């Protein structure tokens, strides 16, 4: 959303899963940019397509049944969807680092943490083993692990959840990535530990100038770390803009309803706002706007046509007919 070339430019990305129950439209026509040194938050409920977004960028979508059907993912102007498998292997863990929700499943239980960091460094740089070891210990120190020389030789199960997530961050950052994708990095952690990890990611971002994609279902986490936010619902971006603006002045009825439905300490309400109904199945999506069966402001057109993501003069993007007349229309997909 800046004039300068963004680090990552995703356009019209569609990733579908071809299952027995039909086609699951996990990601449908999603576009966004990540500017250099910025954090994009992707927020949405379970099944809204957040992880599939991350996996699509990394080209790690399980296939079959999944397939990136269309779209482009440009990293510094080059479409990485066109790269060979071998090139992708270099990019993953090299230019793009990734941190997953459950560090226990993404760390290999039979290797020491030090070994796993070293391996990543050896794969992505010209270091020899001695240099790689030094760098691994330095990384452990950087992510705030006490006694890094000792921890180097320990196995993942010997560490607490917070420490394991620090190790994952150390691995992801060991090759100086330009983009760090964090998929629910703190969801399995306690809040006081979560605060430590978020602070760490923020500090490291500042030190290295990397950009971050922060994926979470927790609007509070996004509030704390993101410059921009994309709100997803049923595989589509519903609203996209500066995080502060989206949270203080939501425009899409889904964003607004969601914000009102979560309790917070500042605004004490008697009764919580309720979003009636439930999230639609992605293989049997409703006609028209995907949110219309639950939308209090739905109009006739909402039942018939799919709204496009349109950009307002202030740069905010909203996928809703309530916000589409007065603004310049983008090509209507989907």
């Amino acid at each position: 959303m800046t004039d300068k070339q963004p680090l990552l430019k995703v356009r019209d990305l569609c990733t579908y899963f071809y299952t027995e129950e039909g086609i699951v439209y996990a990601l449908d026509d999603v576009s966004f940019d990540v500017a250099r040194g910025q954090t994009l938050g992707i927020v949405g409920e379970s099944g809204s397509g957040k992880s599939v977004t991350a996996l699509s960028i990394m080209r790690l979508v399980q296939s079959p049944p999944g397939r990136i059907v269309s779209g482009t993912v440009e990293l510094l102007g080059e479409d990485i969807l066109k790269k060979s498998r071998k090139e992708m292997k270099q990019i993953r863990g090299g230019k793009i680092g990734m941190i997953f929700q459950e560090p226990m499943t993404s760390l290999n239980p039979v290797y020491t943490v030090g070994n796993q960091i070293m391996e990543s460094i050896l794969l992505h740089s010209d270091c020899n083993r001695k240099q790689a070891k030094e760098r691994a210990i330095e990384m452990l120190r950087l992510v705030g692990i006490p006694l890094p020389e000792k921890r180097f030789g320990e196995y993942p199960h010997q560490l607490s959840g917070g420490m394991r997530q620090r190790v994952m961050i150390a691995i992801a950052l060991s090759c100086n990535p330009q983009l760090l994708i964090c998929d629910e990095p703190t969801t399995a952690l306690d809040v006081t530990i979560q605060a430590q990890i978020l602070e760490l990611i923020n500090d490291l971002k500042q030190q290295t100038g990397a950009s971050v994609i922060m994926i979470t279902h927790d609007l509070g986490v996004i509030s704390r770390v993101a410059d921009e936010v994309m709100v997803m619902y049923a595989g589509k971006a519903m609203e996209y803009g500066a995080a502060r603006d989206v949270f203080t002045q939501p425009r899409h009825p889904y964003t607004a309803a969601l914000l009102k439905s979560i309790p917070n300490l500042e605004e004490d309400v008697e009764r919580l706002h309720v979003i009636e109904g439930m999230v639609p199945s992605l293989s049997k999506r409703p006609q028209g706007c995907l949110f219309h069966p639950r939308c209090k402001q739905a109009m006739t057109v909402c039942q018939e046509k799919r709204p496009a993501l349109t950009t307002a003069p202030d740069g905010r993007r909203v996928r809703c007919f309530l916000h589409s007349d007065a603004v310049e229309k983008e090509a209507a997909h989907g």
Partner: protein
Amino acid sequence: MAEQEVLMAVENLNKWFPVRKMGRARGYVKAVNDVSLQIRRGETLGIVGESGCGKTTLGRAMIRLTDVTDGRVIFDGQDISRLSEKELRPLRRDMQIIFQDPYSSLNPRMTVGDIISEPLVYQNMYSASERIDRVRELMDLCGLDPVYIRRYPHEFSGGQRQRIGIARAIAVNPKFVLCDEPVSALDVSIQSQVINLLMDLQSRTGIAYAFISHNLNVVYHVSRRIAVLYLGRVVELAERETFKNNRAHPYTRALFEAIPQVGFDEQQKKAPLSGDLPSPVDLPSGCVFHTRCPYTQPRCRTEVPDLREIDPGHYVACHLV
């Protein structure tokens, strides 16, 4: 607190689990330590704290789903801490539980009707035909269409399954329901439906809840009073409003600051606490929080602070408060 107002009283409760290695006890997981608190009729007591601090264990001890190591649990005037399962059976009617996981807590081979009427059968309440009427009434009350009475749990969404669990819990008109993370597994847009339902049921029937959650915003919303647990100890207990403006314990303050709030004003960007939670097997000496507390004094390492009433109804366990 007047005697007759108190429904549930926990007195100096301890619950320790033996840690066995090679069949021999090698110490204990000290899950609940010297906890005393009370729950009044019709009120919600929120119980918050981080993973492993003993919330579930405390809750299960209250309704005697587990035996207690030491101390007393007094329910409705009766000491239930040493009762056998057989002696507890008639009391079970008044103490129910709603579980966190709406997927695994419902028997997949039972219909919704059978699930909801199970406690009625167990308590021998109503005739068979009256039971069906009662189930329909409960489904209606919990926002489930009674036409689905013959369906199976897998045919429902997470939010609907949680409603089934709630209908089952309130079927026998209990006085007390332990809600153990009742909305944590639900989608954000579904959570408020379930929270409102629980609160509506309370204002209609006067049930008391112990509401366990690690989500402070949710607990703050539903509770009248809140107990904050750290490593099995109550470190602060007060009316909900106190937690908005007058949190006193250093851990409580850090905990509330650590919760990211939506909206940006005064957002804390610095982590309020360093270090990990200590193991509940080797509890720190003195104040259990002293290893992470930013204000630790020498006496904090040696002396356990009592839970003292610093203002009416506001209890804090800290030497410096």
